[in-house]
């Protein structure tokens, strides 16, 4: 392994750790760290978003197992959201294969800012 490769791999592991940390801490949001990293590694916006889902999947599985073991959450809390969630996944993957949701990101950004402020002020 040459020096350059070693350097990028170390950065990938390091930022991967930040991704996992955020995802383990909040139960969400790891993708928001992974997407910019993947773009830096040469993926376009769409592929970065797709690969981010693949990065988060094993991390979510591990975090969920720990949450279940520690009793922070149980399956019965979560299952009602799953059927429509799965339906949404089919819709979302379709949308992403048709268009790049640039404007959607901006609108969603506004929503996140609003919710963030409400959480901070609570």
């Amino acid at each position, binding site marked *: 392994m040459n020096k350059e490769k070693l350097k990028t791999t170390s950065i990938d592991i390091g930022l*991967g*750790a*930040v*991704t*996992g*940390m*955020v*995802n*383990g*801490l*909040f*139960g*969400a*949001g790891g*993708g928001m760290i992974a997407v910019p*990293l*993947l773009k830096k590694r040469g993926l376009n916006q769409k592929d*970065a*978003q*797709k*690969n981010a*889902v*693949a990065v*988060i*999947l094993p*991390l*979510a*599985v591990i975090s*969920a197992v720990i*949450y*279940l073991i520690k009793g922070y*959450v149980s*399956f019965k*809390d979560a299952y009602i*959201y*799953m*059927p*429509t*969630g*799965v*339906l*949404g*996944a*089919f819709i*979302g*993957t379709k*949308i*992403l294969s048709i268009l790049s949701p*640039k404007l*959607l990101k*901006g609108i*969603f*950004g506004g929503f996140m*800012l609003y*919710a*963030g*402020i*409400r*959480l*901070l002020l609570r």
Partner: protein
Amino acid sequence: MTVAALLAGLLSGIIGSMGLGGGTVLIIYLSFFKHEKQITAGGINLLFFIPIAIISVIIYAKAKDIKWKLIIPIIIGGIIGCFIGIFLGKTIGNVWLAKAFGGFLCFLGVKEIINTVKLYLKKPKKSGIIKKE
């Protein structure tokens, strides 16, 4: 409230499968409307995300869009990070965890808004100039 729950699931599924942070939608719903503890909301979202991510990854992998070689080091780092994050969450407690999540959302929100604005400001120029390199 059941209709709202189904809609929250749907919207999170759509946004989550696109890698846009659908988890934040469900957590916000759980925390604002169901008054769940931050850590429970996060846990529900983790469980919720797993089937969605499996379906999405299968679809993307079939299209050969998943670059496994690139993402494996990120996943390895991520696994270590999970343990740190969960430990951290337990240490700071529920109130501060909710505030930290609020701060994280503000950061992401501002970032996305700036990116979008930049993109739309750039657009008219782009067609006029030849891209270098």
